């Protein structure tokens, strides 16, 4: 039987190409992204271990606030340094200061885009055992006006020693003299990041606090382990500080980065699985068709004494070989893909200097397993059908698709649909932590249920869709429509693959449109100012607080009020808090008091949104325990419960700017946005005030002055950007679905060789043959697309409804986009038919009709 399987495999290798291709693409995507993210992760692991290689022990504050980007810590005083230096076993100890700083090019534009690699300002360490930098040109910084740049930044900015270099920080733009250019070890950059180095007091003034270090790095003498030294140091340092080994310190940075990469990796994995899920339909369809076409051969084998089990195993084995081989090639392609993407990322300067490709064995094994298993599972049903072929079928004519409107099918489909809908509802409305998984599972069941019902609705659907075609192009339309209807299972499975892809596209499009509409609505309803100043920077590179005062001083400005955000632990959980000046902000953004008074929010107080107060059962006057970077645990009194349509609310907690300044280091005391209201909002008033506004915002690099229309566009553009990324990632699933359409058409053409020959013999022209195949393809594509869009809209509506209390209040359908999707589907349908139609038209009439 193995021989039969292998021979069958060889005989049908052309027909199995699409199966192999869909497995291959999915596996390649899956393994490729895993290899890429592992490589990036490994390269950054190396960056961190290189950067911190000379550090044996780190002394730092033990007060920290967790953020999604790792923990932030309070700085420690310089006074700790002498204590540490005196410890026996310490070779050298120096305070390290690190902050965000933007090096500007000669046109005063940031050298690194907001989405680019990080940009750091550091202090130059003087002890050789701690400083990894090697000056390659000029000297180290010694004066307060000195700056030293990494080799790449100097090159990118066309800076030479002696040039004036401008940098942008909290306090605005400052000028320095480039005294030196350095490499980190042998590398041009600090692990891919931009670095500017200053004397310790200079950088403390720029991004830190005078007299404070971020941490103290200690190099030990030889002969003592890091742990021993850390233990010794720990005994002498003051309370509120801790000593950890260099290894632990490096591992913490590595872990924080891996967490981010991990999220990214999971995100990509979801799309790889979607692609494989779509691919499983192609596999199922191919095997179904092959089994149908081989009915006579299988029946012959049965008549000659093959058991059902042998037939079943034979098909399964065939699927196994196809799945395994395709997966192996897929992993190979995935590695190549990762290498290519890695090169690309290096060229655009995103990744580390020389990221070696790391191929994690787990990713390879999992990719192979998933690819092979999906092929096997998808082939099980066709294989079972093959096993039920009775020996007598060998004597009969070719079997026809008997899948009709069987009651069992409808019932099973509806049960699955109900289960899926329930899971969607539960996931959206329940407060379960695994809501997202439940929603994903629900969507999966809905897709499966539609696939089960598919054959039942395929015939009427094809009939309706084909009707106008039949009216328009007579006999070719009629034949195309009949062909789409004759194998309902085949048509519906092919369409299902497309339905999933289009369904997700539609879902994302509807959700994004709703988010955009809600955002615009919210801004319209809440922002009463005319201008908004935004920035790409954050923390110390955002807008200086002085800017609000400067804007207030511009003639024609009634009020300018800034908003800041910070991480803090509130009621034991890490949250984003907004900070505003309550008296001025209420003049540019509408806040309604539910309880208490928002506009009198002051030091020692905190405000909560109505939703938050309801969810957490908060009462006015309640003490809220909070913890920030500065000052440690802080008790705040809940003095206001407010309501606003304003879209950026963070977690709903708001403190006053005064309170914010008390708990955040000076360098972080910036605004993320400033809202400006003019005295005269007419165009004359706007024109009069605009030059003054521009003059102020131009002093801060990266600051953008936008009127409300531009601001709204910028907000919705962010959604559009995300949308584009998701579309690109879903494209693979759609391509696989189109491969499925091509495959089904090709197999159908092959199956209808005789019929096509007959049509050609009685006078069908090649053009008419092509047209028939093309129209059939369009019917299938439209069927998948239309059902997909309906599902997408329903899913989108469900999500938007569930997110209503998160500020997504409008449900909007992007009709233009949907129409474009339908048009693309028609074009793709025509495109998918190109090759099959040509094959059909090229058919040798004589061979087609000569009876074998």
């Amino acid at each position: 039987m193995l021989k039969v399987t292998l021979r069958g495999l060889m005989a049908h290798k052309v027909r199995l190409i699409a199966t192999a291709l869909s497995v291959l693409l999915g596996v390649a995507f899956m393994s490729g992204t895993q290899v890429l993210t592992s490589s990036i992760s490994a390269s950054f692991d190396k960056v961190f271990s290189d950067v911190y290689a000379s550090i044996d022990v780190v002394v730092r504050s033990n007060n920290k606030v967790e953020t999604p980007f790792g923990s932030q810590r309070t700085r420690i005083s310089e006074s700790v340094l002498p204590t540490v230096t005196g410890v026996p076993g310490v070779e050298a100890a120096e305070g390290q200061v690190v902050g965000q700083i933007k090096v500007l090019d000669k046109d005063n534009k940031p050298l690194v885009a907001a989405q680019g690699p990080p940009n750091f300002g550091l202090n130059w360490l003087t002890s050789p055992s701690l400083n990894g930098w090697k000056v390659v040109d000029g000297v180290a910084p010694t004066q307060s006006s000195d700056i030293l740049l990494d080799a790449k930044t100097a090159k990118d900015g066309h800076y030479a020693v002696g040039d004036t270099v401008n940098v942008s920080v909290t306090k605005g733009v400052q000028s320095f003299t480039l005294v030196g250019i350095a490499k980190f070890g042998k590398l041009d950059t600090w692990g891919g990041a931009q670095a500017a180095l200053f004397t310790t007091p200079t950088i403390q003034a720029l991004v830190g606090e005078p007299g404070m270090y971020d941490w103290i790095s200690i190099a030990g003498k030889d002969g003592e382990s890091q742990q021993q030294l850390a233990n010794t140091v720990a005994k002498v340092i003051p309370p509120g500080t801790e000593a950890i080994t260099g290894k632990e310190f490096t591992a913490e940075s590595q872990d924080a980065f891996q967490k981010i990469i991990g999220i990214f990796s999971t995100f990509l994995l979801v799309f790889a699985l979607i692609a494989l899920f779509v691919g499983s339909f192609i596999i199922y369809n191919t095997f179904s068709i092959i089994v149908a076409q081989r009915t006579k051969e299988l029946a012959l084998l049965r008549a000659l004494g093959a058991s059902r089990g042998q037939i079943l195993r034979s098909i399964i084995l065939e699927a196994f070989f196809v799945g395994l081989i395709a997966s192996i090639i897929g992993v190979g392609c995935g590695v190549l893909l990762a290498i290519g993407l890695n090169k690309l990322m290096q060229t655009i300067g995103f990744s580390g200097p020389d990221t070696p490709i790391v191929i994690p064995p787990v990713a390879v094994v999992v990719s192979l397993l998933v690819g092979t298993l999906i092929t096997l599972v998808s082939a099980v049903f066709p294989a079972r059908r093959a096993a039920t072929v009775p020996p007598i079928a060998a004597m009969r004519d070719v079997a026809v698709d008997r899948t009709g409107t069987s009651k069992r099918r409808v019932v099973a489909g509806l049960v699955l649909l109900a289960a899926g809908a329930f899971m969607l509802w539960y996931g959206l409305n329940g407060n379960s932590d695994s809501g997202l998984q439940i929603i994903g599972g629900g969507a999966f069941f809905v897709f499966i249920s539609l696939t089960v019902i598919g054959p039942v609705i395929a015939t009427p659907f094809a009939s309706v869709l084909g009707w106008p075609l039949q009216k328009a192009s007579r006999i070719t339309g009629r034949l195309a429509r009949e062909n789409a209807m004759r194998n309902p299972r085949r048509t519906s499975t092919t369409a299902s693959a497309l339905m999933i892809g289009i369904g997700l596209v539609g879902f994302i499009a509807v959700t994004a449109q709703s988010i955009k509409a809600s955002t615009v609505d919210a801004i319209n309803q809440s922002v009463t100012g005319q201008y908004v100043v935004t920035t790409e920077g954050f923390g110390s590179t955002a807008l200086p607080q002085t800017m609000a005062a400067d804007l207030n001083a511009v003639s024609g400005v009634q009020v300018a009020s800034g908003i800041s955000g910070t991480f803090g632990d509130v009621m034991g959980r890490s949250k984003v808090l907004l900070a505003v000046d309550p008296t001025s902000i209420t003049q540019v953004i509408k806040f309604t008091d539910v309880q208490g008074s928002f506009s009198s929010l002051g030091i020692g107080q905190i405000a909560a949104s109505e939703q938050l107060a309801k969810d957490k059962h908060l009462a006015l006057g309640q003490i809220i325990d909070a913890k920030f970077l500065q000052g440690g645990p802080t008790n705040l009194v809940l003095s206001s419960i407010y309501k606003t349509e304003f879209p950026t609310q963070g977690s709903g907690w708001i403190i006053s700017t005064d309170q914010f300044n008390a708990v955040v280091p000076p360098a972080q005391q910036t605004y993320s946005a400033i809202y400006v209201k003019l005295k005269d909002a007419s165009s004359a008033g706007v024109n009069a005030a605009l030059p003054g506004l521009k003059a102020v915002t131009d002093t801060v690099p990266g600051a953008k002055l936008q009127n409300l229309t531009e601001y709204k566009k910028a907000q919705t553009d962010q959604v559009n950007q995300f949308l584009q990324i998701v579309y690109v990632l879903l494209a693979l699933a759609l391509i696989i679905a189109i491969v499925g359409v091509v495959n089904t058409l090709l197999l159908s053409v092959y199956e209808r060789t005789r019929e096509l020959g007959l049509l050609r013999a009685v006078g069908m022209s090649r053009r008419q043959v092509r047209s028939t195949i093309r129209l059939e393809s369009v019917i299938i594509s439209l069927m998948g697309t239309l059902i997909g869009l309906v599902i997408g809209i329903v899913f989108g509506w469900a999500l938007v409804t569930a997110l209503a209390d998160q500020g997504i209040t409008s449900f909007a359908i992007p009709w233009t986009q949907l129409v474009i999707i339908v048009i693309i589907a028609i074009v793709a349908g025509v495109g998918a038919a190109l090759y099959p139609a040509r094959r059909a038209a090229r058919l040798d009439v004589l061979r087609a009709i000569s009876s074998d």
Partner: protein
Amino acid sequence: MTTNSSPADTATAAHTENVTKVYGAGDTLVTALDNVSVSFERSKFTAIMGPSGSGKSTLMHCVAGLDTINSGRIFIGDVDLSGLNDKQLTRLRRDTIGFVFQSFNLVPTLTALENITLPMDLAGRAPDQEWLDTIVSTVGLGDRLSHRPSELSGGQQQRVAVARALASQPAIIFADEPTGNLDSRSGSEILQFMRMAVDKFAQTIVMVTHDPLAASYADRVVFLVDGALVDELQSPTADSVIDRMKRFGA
């Protein structure tokens, strides 16, 4: 070429002049047709007979413009096929030639009536309703006309196939073993139907067969052996055909 009927001055519906066709090359060279010159008279029923591999099907395929030849000339009416490209051949088939095959004669997704009018639908022209009614009533399918082929018996299917060949009033109809897949009763029904089409409607039919009984329905039988035309018989009977066949060792 654009009209259905051939010019009146041509006595034959189709004829060949020294047609030769070979397959393969070198040692595997097979001569399928060897200098064949034959003509098929208008409004007559001609049968082509010969043993397996004699080239009778090849001859029919070549005359019908389905297959190419190596040398010689073939005419349908007065149209020389050698000068036509695929598009023109397709049109010729559609407008002036009718086909009946051994099996798989009908498009399974179309009803019997739709199958009959298929060539006209492909040409985008309306059938001659009066002629169509005549054909349809002669086929005798009655209410089964709206049924799909799978719901018809083999004999009924083949009658629909003959009706389709007749419907467009072609200059000539080629039938390739039309009774090969049928039982003898259905087979003789088809042959009677074809005989009647020639007698009553003055159609021209060329039929390839290896069955002497089927050949006996024809006006004339031509015999092919090893690709060469060896003999012919006018007004054959089953016995006279068998007699003649024996001579060729078939």
